[in-house]
């Protein structure tokens, strides 16, 4: 027998290595379970996509409000989030106005002493004219 034939016959004996019939039955079951899990996952995604599209359709003409509102919200957010060039300085026109109005502005206390010693004016009762009697007193005085 040739050497190569002998080696081939030996290698051919490897076909007797096998996991057994039970393994193949279990393999088929495992594959079915795996496929079911994959299909379930795909169907839940498809279901979600279907529900979202149905919701959009049911909104009718109002469905355009959602993207419009979202765009407006994003735009407003960007407007306020993006800082201006000189954030801490007032514009020149505003500075000019405040300087002329200074004289008419009320004077606020500049120190804490002034705050604590603020004089609160005493309440002064209104002056009563002697010739003016209260309405309910007239009858009694007439009697006098």
């Amino acid at each position: 027998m040739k050497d190569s034939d002998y080696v081939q016959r030996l290698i051919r004996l490897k076909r007797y290595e096998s996991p057994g019939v039970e393994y193949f039955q279990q393999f088929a079951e495992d594959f079915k379970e795996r496929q079911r899990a994959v299909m379930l996952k795909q169907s839940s995604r498809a279901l979600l996509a279907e529900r979202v599209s149905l919701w959009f359709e049911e909104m009718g003409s109002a469905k355009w409000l959602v993207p419009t509102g979202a765009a407006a919200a994003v735009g407003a957010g960007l407007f306020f989030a993006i800082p201006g060039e000189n954030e801490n300085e007032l514009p020149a026109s505003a500075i000019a106005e405040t300087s002329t109005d200074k004289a008419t502005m009320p004077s606020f206390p500049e120190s804490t002493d002034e705050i604590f010693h603020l004089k609160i004016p005493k309440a002064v009762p209104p002056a009563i004219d002697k010739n003016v009697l209260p309405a309910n007193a007239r009858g009694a005085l007439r009697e006098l």
Partner: protein
Amino acid sequence: MKLTEASLSAMPKTDFPNSGDQSGSASDISGEDLRKKGGNAKANPMSERRKMRKVDPDLELVQRAREGDTAAFDELVVKYTPKLYGLVYHMTSNHEDTNDTLQDVFAKAYRALKRFKGKSAFYTWIYSIATNMTLNFLKKRNRRRAYSLDDVDLAIERDEDFIEATSKSDPVREANISELQERLNMAMQQLSDDHRAVVTMFDIQGMPHAEIAKIIGVSEGTVRSRLFYAHKQLQTYLDDFRK
């Protein structure tokens, strides 16, 4: 539980009429069959044979599976798992890797089923997928990964090749079956992945050169030269068994 001879004979045989160990199938048409069909059989037997040969025995199951019949695909899984398991296992010598890879093979085949155009037999197509995925897996796998070998069916003791090997060669007779199994697997793992693939398909699974060429996408000449080189290498690794 190991395979018995009855279960071995019940396993699906390959559809390769040129292989010595397997019986023919749809492609093995006898003259008597043609006479029974009548019609143009006598007038044009070769074209009739060609037409019959082209009919894929899995055509109906594949059609149903493509239409979404998962039970039909499950039948294909049950039918081809033993053969594809053998292919992947003999290339990896690892039971766990084989199990994982084979699950991926069938999952990929299921997803790609709609692209299967029927130009080749379904068996050839899924065999190509299994071979390519196993080769890709082996490229990524750590070469030092331990073996995880399946049990050897005790029917080996009645095999002619085994009997002859143990009667003539002292080293083989002295080595017990598990030692022999380990030596054969070690010798196979010494081969490159491509050479191991052709040895698995030709020597272990009995596939003809033409079918191997279709599966791995090379010429028949390339298959023959790879086998020649692989056998030379195996002789070196198993030289001590040749005393």
